[in-house]
């Protein structure tokens, strides 16, 4: 789909910060607020804007610590439906945070979030590995998140080091 410059500009702003008001967008792009609303609605309806997620560092909150595992899954694709049906069987589980079909040595990349390692191990052995046509799983536990969706987690680069007034 081809977008107009105005639409691309709106996306650029929302990509940086989705928490910005329509009024601010309108002023930044010299548009009317109504026009901004209409275009955002349209982008949402077309699923170009899919959702507005908030990146939360749960590990900073006592009692809310989470463990993340990335699991490489090898499967036997099925006649007629390929990978899609197995994928659906996997992504329906609420524990699954993301699922991608990959090229390379395995087929599906599954991200799981849980409270303990054991919880994740149970999910893999009881649910994931028992799905028909899943050939093998390799579980990698995430030790530290440095950067997520383009955001550096504990970076100090956004600190303003400039002098307060300069020529």
């Amino acid at each position: 789909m081809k977008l107009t410059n105005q639409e691309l500009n709106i996306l650029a702003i929302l990509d940086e910060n989705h928490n910005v008001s329509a009024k601010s967008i309108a002023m930044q792009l010299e548009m009317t607020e109504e026009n901004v609303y209409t275009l955002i609605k349209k982008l949402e309806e077309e699923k170009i804007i899919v959702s507005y997620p908030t990146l939360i560092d749960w590990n900073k909150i006592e009692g809310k610590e989470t463990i993340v595992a990335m699991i490489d899954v090898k499967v036997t694709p099925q006649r007629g439906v390929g990978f899609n049906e197995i994928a659906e069987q996997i992504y329906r589980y609420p524990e699954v945070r993301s699922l991608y079909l990959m090229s390379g040595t395995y087929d599906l990349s599954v991200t799981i979030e849980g409270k303990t390692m054991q919880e994740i191990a149970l999910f893999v052995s009881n649910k994931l590995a028992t799905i028909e046509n899943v050939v093998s799983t390799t579980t990698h536990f995430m030790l530290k998140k440095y950067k997520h969706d383009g955001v550096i987690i504990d970076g100090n680069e956004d600190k303003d080091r400039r002098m307060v007034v300069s020529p």
Partner: protein
Amino acid sequence: MSIDYQQYLSKTAIGLEPSGIRKFFDLAATMDDVISLGVGEPDFITPWNIRELAIQALREGQTAYTANAGLLELRQEISNYLYKRFLVEYQPENQIIVTVGASQSLDLAFRAIINSGDEVLIIEPAFVSYAALVTMAGGVPIRVETSADNGFKVTPEQIEEVITHKTKAILLCSPNNPTGTSLNRDELTAIASVVEKHDLLVVSDEIYAELTYDQEFTSFAAIPNMYERTILVNGFSKGFAMTGWRLGFLAAPQELINVMVKIYQYTTMCAPTMLQMGAIEALRNSSEQVEKMRQNYWRRRNYIVQSLNQIGLECHTPGGAFYVFPSIKKSGLTSEEFAHGLLQQEKVAVVPGNAFGASGEGYIRCSYAASIEQIEIAMNRIARYMESLARTENAALEIAK
């Protein structure tokens, strides 16, 4: 025995006006939680690929001098860049010098062309260093005042009015600091005819070239017959977000460059080697990031111009740089009173317009090299400040009645 240092100091140096910005900086620096629209540099950090190349250069031990004019490889890239972006052709071997910031380019230019008493026209409001640089080179800065009526654009008539037989050059800065005013091709062409008629040179400070919004940037050297008369000054600070690197460059006819290189070899030798390596990467592989920053500034400009006008601080829409220059005359205060009050009362730092010359009185410079969120807060505070000024005025009127 106490020594009277005044007798040792140079009269020229003592005579230099202290920068109006400096005074204000000293005050602002003592305060906490200031939202600053007073900063004359990008809020972006230098793109990582550029930083990485400089780090690599250090790892490799690139710590020796380079040629006086800079690494030939960098001059080659500058030459390509100037041609590709602005359609001006300079030979890397003998027409380009890499300097320590664009400021040094200006210094070299004036030292190379000024004889004692020569006059250089400075279009005001202007960057704080211009007049001082001319004075230190032995010249006399002649101020040409522009006005908000036509968006602070200098006209050929204004220039011609002050030209004397001593006039040697005009210093042009488009897009301009502090007004953001950008001169288009037609306006530059009109100035060019005066330059030719009076046989002058032009020192063209094009440091904000990359930050031009509504129309294509035109280099003064690209105006017909002006190539031979132009000393083009540019650099990496603003467009590439590399202020702290202190890397600029100048490009000019070979005979002028020869003299400037001579001065440069006696004063500075060369710009830092490892940083020059980073600058090569800046010119080769950063155009996408530069464009992204430009888009960002453009959106902020639109936002801040509308905000200020809504608050009642009349403001023209500048074509470039990252400054707006709204009028504060409505407040009944001087620029300095307004800026000091705003800083004390609302902790927003802006620069009083008179720091950039007498014609800047009645204005303030707001830099939008700040995030939209910061700008939004600053605008709310300025609005509140204006309301409080209006209340004070009303109260005074009541008492007078």
